[in-house]
């Protein structure tokens, strides 16, 4: 459902008029509390947490726990992504605590520290497709198979950590230091918990609920959220660094990333309204020379 959609003749508009028309559409969807994403967070996290007692007590078979956990990991990033952009509540708002709670807890299944995610994601927005400054540039690949192989290669012990490099580039300030400390504590906690479960006789359970789903799920997230919307990562600039792509397997499988260009143009629009905003903006985006492609 779009709100107050109005026909427009973009061919007669100049740059300023196009920008104004785009902003008018964006404002209708910006800064609206997304119950959809909040419920997504609550259900997904609750589901993943419930796997632990159900599996350890033998009430859920391991194959089922692994399958569900895999979906949980794949689905855990996007609510945090909204929180990274403060889309649930801005700093100083009454519900700010909820924004931060969602940000911190949503990505527990994939062990992505919130503050590091927020800082590096803002760098991604500022420097999209910049080989030196975009922390997500490392996933650049000719096709999706190569993108998966590249992701696996980037995770090997000898490879540099792009998020660590970005934090180093951001300099020695209290916000970065705090993010680094939180990230270190959360990552160490993950490995300690993993080892504790393993040495307590639950190695297979913890491997199938957390370790393996995390590995596979984050690969999928990288493919859909980093590679697909920005491929081939050769162009920079507001209207060319991200594309609209028609996913042959559907936008749900693509995790809503068909309309990722709207997110880059207007990050304050929650994910579930990117599609309707895109359809309203489509003539403007076409006039701007945005890429409309298929995957």
């Amino acid at each position: 459902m779009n709100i107050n959609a109005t026909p427009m003749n973009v061919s007669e508009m100049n740059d300023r008029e196009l920008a104004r028309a785009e902003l008018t559409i964006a404002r209708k969807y910006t800064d609206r509390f997304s119950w959809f994403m909040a419920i997504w967070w609550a259900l997904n996290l609750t589901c993943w947490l419930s796997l632990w007692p159900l599996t350890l007590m033998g009430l859920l078979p391991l194959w089922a726990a692994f399958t569900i956990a895999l979906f949980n990991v794949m689905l855990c990033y996007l609510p945090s992504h909204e929180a990274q952009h403060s889309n649930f509540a801005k700093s100083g708002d009454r519900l700010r605590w909820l924004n931060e709670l969602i940000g911190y807890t949503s990505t527990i299944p994939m062990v992505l520290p919130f503050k590091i995610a927020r800082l590096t994601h803002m760098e991604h927005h500022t420097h999209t497709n910049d080989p030196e400054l975009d922390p997500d540039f490392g996933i650049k690949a000719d096709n999706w198979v190569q993108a998966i192989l590249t992701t696996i290669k980037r995770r090997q012990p000898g490879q540099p950590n792009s998020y660590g490099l970005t934090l180093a580039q951001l300099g020695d300030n209290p916000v970065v230091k705090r993010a680094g400390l939180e990230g270190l504590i959360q990552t160490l906690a993950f490995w300690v918990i993993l080892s504790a479960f393993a040495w307590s006789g639950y190695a297979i359970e913890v491997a199938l609920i957390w370790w393996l789903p995390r590995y596979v799920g984050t690969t999928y997230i990288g493919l859909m959220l980093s590679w697909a919307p920005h491929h081939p990562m050769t162009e920079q600039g507001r209207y060319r660094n991200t594309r609209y792509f028609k996913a042959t397997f559907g936008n749900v499988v693509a995790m809503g990333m068909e309309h990722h260009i709207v997110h880059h143009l207007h990050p304050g629009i929650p994910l579930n309204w990117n599609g309707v905003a895109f359809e309203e903006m489509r003539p403007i985006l076409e006039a701007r020379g945005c890429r409309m492609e298929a995957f």
Partner: protein
Amino acid sequence: MIHKILTTIGPWGPLLFGVGFLAPLIAQIIERAGATPPLGLAPLMVGLIVGPALGLAAKLRGRWI
């Protein structure tokens, strides 16, 4: 401090992973599969040989696979 911890522990990550996680995982897979390790070794002994060996190899090669 963070940098020091990362540069101290980080390079040994694969070996720590081999001891802390792979060793018990291998042992428990052997036990659940009902397999009998060679040379009269206990499943945990196999895990403690194979897990750290894989971790050390990953550290030296700079890659797991």
